[in-house]
């Protein structure tokens, strides 16, 4: 992480651009990766200070009723709540009138707007990636008090379940198979099986080529066997690299379970400008108002770390 050491652009900030003779202005603009958070998170609008998801457990299995005996009863119950408290993220810049007027090469005001937008987009992406980056950290818990990836997620009516390997398991064909087998045993809060299906694989940049070998080969990868590769093309959503994942060996599978990865947009990217009367300094700010999180941990299965 870095911080802008100069909040104000003056003539001295880009002094050489005050006179002609420059061939090129370098390193000011780059291409960016396409948006990555939307491969993981579903976006919803919000009109409140915070949003609350409440997890519910339904009914369990029915009981045998011997002749003349009463039936047994069950009820649904509230389990745990997941709170999404939105926060405003903002950045501004100040440009002196003289710096704007005398810069011969760049419209600083126009460029400032573009750069602010870029900073907001990168911040948005980082917020999303940090949900995964903190996924094994017990300091960042979901509604059931467990981190995103845990071997002890709580079932509302008793018991626990895992949405990760108990020990770190490197990405491989066998590991994907084992994860998919575990996902097929996901249960609801009352212990009933649910039809959870793997949707996509999410990896750091270091695993791109490993993922390609595992998912694109029709035959068993990395072996001389002609056996079929049962996980080839198994993810309808394919695999997605997230360049902000910090653990370069961790990976996870996203499932099609509802109310999993959520992004609330309280206010989209918003920009504003003004000019200070006394100094004639130009100011430009960009903001957005959002929150990220996960309600149902069945939305994923992690490699361990």
């Amino acid at each position, binding site marked *: *992480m*870095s*911080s*802008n*050491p*100069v*909040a*104000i652009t*003056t*003539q*001295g*900030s880009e*002094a*050489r651009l*005050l*006179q002609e003779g420059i061939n090129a202005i370098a390193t000011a603009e780059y291409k960016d990766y396409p948006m990555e958070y939307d491969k993981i998170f579903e976006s919803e609008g919000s009109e409140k200070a915070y949003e609350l998801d409440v997890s519910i457990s339904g009914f369990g299995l029915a009981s045998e009723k011997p002749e003349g005996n009463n039936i047994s009863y069950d009820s649904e119950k509230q389990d745990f709540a997941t709170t999404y408290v939105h926060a405003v*993220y903002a950045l501004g810049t*100040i440009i*002196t009138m003289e710096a704007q007027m005398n810069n011969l090469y760049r419209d600083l005001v126009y460029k400032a707007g573009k750069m602010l937008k870029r900073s907001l987009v990168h*911040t948005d992406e*980082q*917020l999303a990636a*940090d949900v995964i980056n903190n996924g094994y950290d017990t300091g960042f818990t979901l509604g059931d008090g467990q981190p995103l990836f845990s071997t002890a997620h709580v079932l509302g009516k008793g018991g626990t379940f895992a949405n990760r390997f108990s020990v770190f398991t490197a990405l491989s064909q066998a590991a994907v198979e084992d994860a998919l087998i575990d996902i097929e045993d996901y249960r609801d809060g009352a212990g009933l099986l649910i039809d959870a299906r793997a949707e996509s694989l999410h990896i750091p940049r270091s695993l791109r080529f490993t993922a390609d070998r595992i998912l694109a080969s029709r035959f068993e990868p990395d072996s001389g066997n002609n056996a079929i590769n049962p996980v080839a093309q198994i993810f309808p959503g394919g695999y997605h690299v997230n360049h902000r994942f910090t653990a370069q060996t961790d990976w996870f599978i996203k499932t099609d379970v509802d109310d999993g990865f959520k992004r609330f947009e309280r206010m989209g990217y918003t920009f504003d400008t003004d000019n*200070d009367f*006394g*100094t004639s*300094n130009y*100011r430009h700010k960009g903001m957005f108002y959002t929150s990220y999180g996960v309600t149902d941990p069945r939305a994923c299965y992690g490699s361990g770390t």
Partner: protein
Amino acid sequence: MTAFGFAPIGTTDGADYHGKMRDVILDDGANAFVGDMLILGGTALAADTVPRLTPAASAAAGNTLKGALVSIYPDFTDEGSLVTNYHVSGADGVGKVCWGEDVIFAAREDALVGPIDGTVIGGSVDLITGTGSVITGISGMALDSSSAALDKVQALNLLQLDLQQGNVFEATVGGTGAIFNVSINPVA
């Protein structure tokens, strides 16, 4: 740790921050880098119409900080100097300084001995000079983590952990160091 000196980000009384600056003379006795905290220094001349400042070597007694250097005013009489990003010693220069105790600055800690944690937030902290970059022109000044204490005697008020995304208390001695918000302590 990548220090960047002191960057003005707001005001202590909540007033809107417009980027106001004051001109100062940058004394010929020392290089000065953008982000450096400045103190009165050098030999003032009768013709000086604005304060003559120099980078703080440390916040020793009597060296009350005046403000942070935010820009070097270009010397238009010497076009070759326009590519120099810092004030070069040997000649006086003109600096733009964000001035006073009402300004909130962001600065990184050095985290060399014991990183700053929540037990000293609200107290005060000293600075260390580090080495500014003659390439980027950016200051090498940082907060001296080991000096942070729950008192009011050091050069800077330690206001809070900076809220920049991803900035958290540093857990590792010698690590990157966290960024904090500080203001000049007028009683130091």
